């Protein structure tokens, strides 16, 4: 199969593609799929499976970007969020992304317009800052930052923080206005290959303010510390 690809499919593609020029094409169309987190979280109740991934396609400066964030318990989605974005490089280290977000779970579903600044901040912090504007004047802010510490060339400790802030109460989906929740993770992965890294770690979540009150009223935990085990992969 590999040989079929290498000697039949590739040459055919090359023949079909534009003429091979002196320097070749410096900016080919590429597709990258990435599973940032695929993990089992150990809690007191049912252990959820979390999945956070992205898929982009495009060129150096312009890409289409899909993002998925989900949590499943017993085979049912408790959380399922999809984003489809157009991403454009605006500075050497930053991309501006605009598009749509759809929260399929929890129900009822919510739709948002998205504006995200994504990139690498000084001191090598990966940052994603998003503004969401939804129906009925709903607004939300999300800030995600991740850092990588190389214990060895392949053993990497990665702290991560996520904050969510909402403009209005939305009791149906369990969020209250103001700072709603903070998630902090610490994951230790081993890159068997760059593309494949199993990890273990800790994930801590806490709800705040109105969101905490809503959760308490539903009988949900306000604070949770989970042991996680998972895989990070990309192609």
């Amino acid at each position, binding site marked *: 199969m590999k040989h079929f690809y290498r000697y039949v499919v590739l040459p055919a593609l090359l023949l079909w593609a534009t003429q091979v*020029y002196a*320097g070749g094409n410096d900016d080919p169309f590429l597709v990258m799929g990435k599973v940032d987190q695929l993990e089992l979280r150990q809690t007191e109740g049912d252990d959820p499976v979390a999945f956070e991934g992205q898929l982009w396609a495009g060129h*150096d400066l312009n890409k289409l970007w899909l993002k998925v964030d989900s949590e499943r318990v017993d085979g049912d989605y408790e959380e399922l969020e999809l984003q489809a974005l157009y991403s454009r490089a605006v500075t*050497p*280290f*930053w991309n501006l992304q605009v598009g749509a977000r759809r929260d399929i779970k929890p129900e009822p579903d919510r739709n948002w317009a998205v504006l995200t600044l994504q990139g690498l901040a000084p001191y090598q912090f990966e940052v994603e800052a998003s503004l969401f504007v939804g129906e009925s004047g709903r607004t939300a802010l999300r800030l995600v930052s991740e850092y990588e510490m190389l214990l060895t060339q392949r053993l990497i400790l990665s702290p991560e923080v996520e904050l969510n802030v909402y403009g209005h109460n939305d009791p149906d989906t369990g969020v209250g206005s103001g700072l709603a929740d903070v998630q902090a993770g610490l994951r230790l992965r081993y890159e068997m290959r760059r593309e494949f890294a199993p990890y273990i770690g800790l994930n801590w979540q806490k709800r705040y303010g109105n969101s905490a009150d809503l959760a308490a009223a539903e009988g949900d935990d306000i604070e949770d510390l989970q042991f996680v085990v998972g895989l990070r992969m990309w192609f």
Partner: protein
Amino acid sequence: MNTPAFPRLSRRRFVTGASAGLALAGLGLSLTSPKAQAKALPPVLSGNQFDLSIGYLPVNFTGADRSATAVNGSVPAPILRWKEGERVTLRVTNHLAHDSSIHWHGMILPSNMDGVPGLSFRGIAPGETYEYQFEVNQNGTYWYHSHSGWQEQTGLYGAIVIEPKDPDPVAYDRDYVVLLSDWTDEDPGDVYAKLKKMSHYYNFQERTVADLWRDIKEKGVARTWNERQMWNAMRMKQSDIADVTGYTYTFLMNGETPDSGWTGVFKRGEKVRLRFINGAAMTLFDIRIPGLKMTVVASDGQNIEPVSVDEFRIGVAETYDVVVEPSGDQAYTVFAQSMDRSGYARGTLTPDPSLTAEIPDMDYRPLLSHGDMGMAAMAGMDHGGSAAGHGNHSQHAASGGDHSGHNMGGMHHSMTGMDHGKHSMKGMDHRRHGMHASSVSDKPGPAGFGSRAEIHHAPSEFGPQVDMRAEAPQSGLHDPGVGLRDHAQRYGRKVLRYGDIRNLYPTLDRRDPEREIQIHLTGNMARYMWSLDGIRFADAEPIRLTYGERVRITLVNDTMMTHPIHLHGLWSELETGDPAAIPRKHTLLVQPGTKISYLVTADALGRWAYHCHLMYHMPGMMREVRVEQGGRGV
């Protein structure tokens, strides 16, 4: 007498049932049939008529069967031996499934013979033959390689040795080609895609928490913070020495892996001329032969005043000829370590094939310094030198005379240079419009002494495609280069510097340049985008030269990589401070954050390629140089 170089017979190479052949049969294309058994490779072809056949060759360098791109069933391609003054005819037939080409690297010839698809000719389509024919009006060591796709990475490179018409000024009894290259089992297109997705993919020499801890123990928290602060703030990595490393590469010497090793045999009392050629795609090598002084006698095929050294760096596509005088009773290792010390190629020079020589350890892994970011050299700021924590002061000691204008002011400008966001939208528009941004000065200084022009960053350099700009670039002439700067102090080795090179013969064109073109080597490492003046090849206008004019090109390296820049068709006459003996090169290393100047006499009409010879930089970091008839010049 000169003995042609034959690598030894034994070879880890599988030439068995070819999966490539089967698949190609399905495409209905012919294929040069691989020989049934291993043979001495590469063969030597001499004369003035050559039939070269480009095809696939099953190879196994690492234990995995792969398909290489070969000439006449050989990787490296055959050694071509020509005679100066003769007219050579080379009929090149393409048996690949897609277009191919051969470029005669360093040869001065008509532009339609230069072998660059899109500029010189249309390329050679599958099944077609292209007849190259030109007069050989030079002598020395050169090489040839494909200029199509990634074929050079997959094996299409070979040596050219041209015998001089007049008596050779170099005395030797035996000569060997030592062709260095880098082999990967990966598809080169995959390598490029990986670099675009994760630019540090192949770097397994990054600084770890343990390095941080050791620095803090040795230097204290404050100094460690200060040294790293700039790198962290700029989102750059000091360990970023090579884009593609020994993680995927197997480094070859005359097609032999480090395990098998190439062997050159000599007799007692012989002077041996080694013709080093760097035919790698991405690897700069540092070469030495422990126990032997090397007398460098030629650079890029051109005779130079002999320089005795212990070590030299060879950039991708450069050639250096050295003469060694080994004693007759021991074997020596020819050691070529990659610049990032992620691996090495090696061979043995021996009077007796049964003798072996010790293989030395690789030297320390270099780190970039602030100077490599094009920042002003300031005492006490530049501690980057090496992974073992030693200082890096030799660069500044060595770069005598090139400190003009490097002061706190330069430092200050560097800081503003870090404000990437400022002009980004504007820069992006320029990228799209493909304007020609090179700054041209009409009052250049006299020939031989390099540029006195101010460093000018064009608007096209500001945008998401460029992550840094050197604000106070020093001359790269007297700097041995990243990772070699303290070899004199540390190991007592004399390392060749460009400033040491003087042409053996007087400069032919003694005119001063009429104008100076300043070109910036630019890129964004994280996005893995490479360009000149912030403009990639696809969006760029040609650089126009008038036939007959003498022009200075000053290259300013606004990146942290060392780029080998190759101008086709015209000599690049390196200004090393002596106008009377300017060395002629075809490929020049431009060190990170530095500038370097050379003179070009536009004496060949046509369209010429001009590019970084690092394979995965070339697609973007490239220009057409167009030499046209015009009113100016001679």
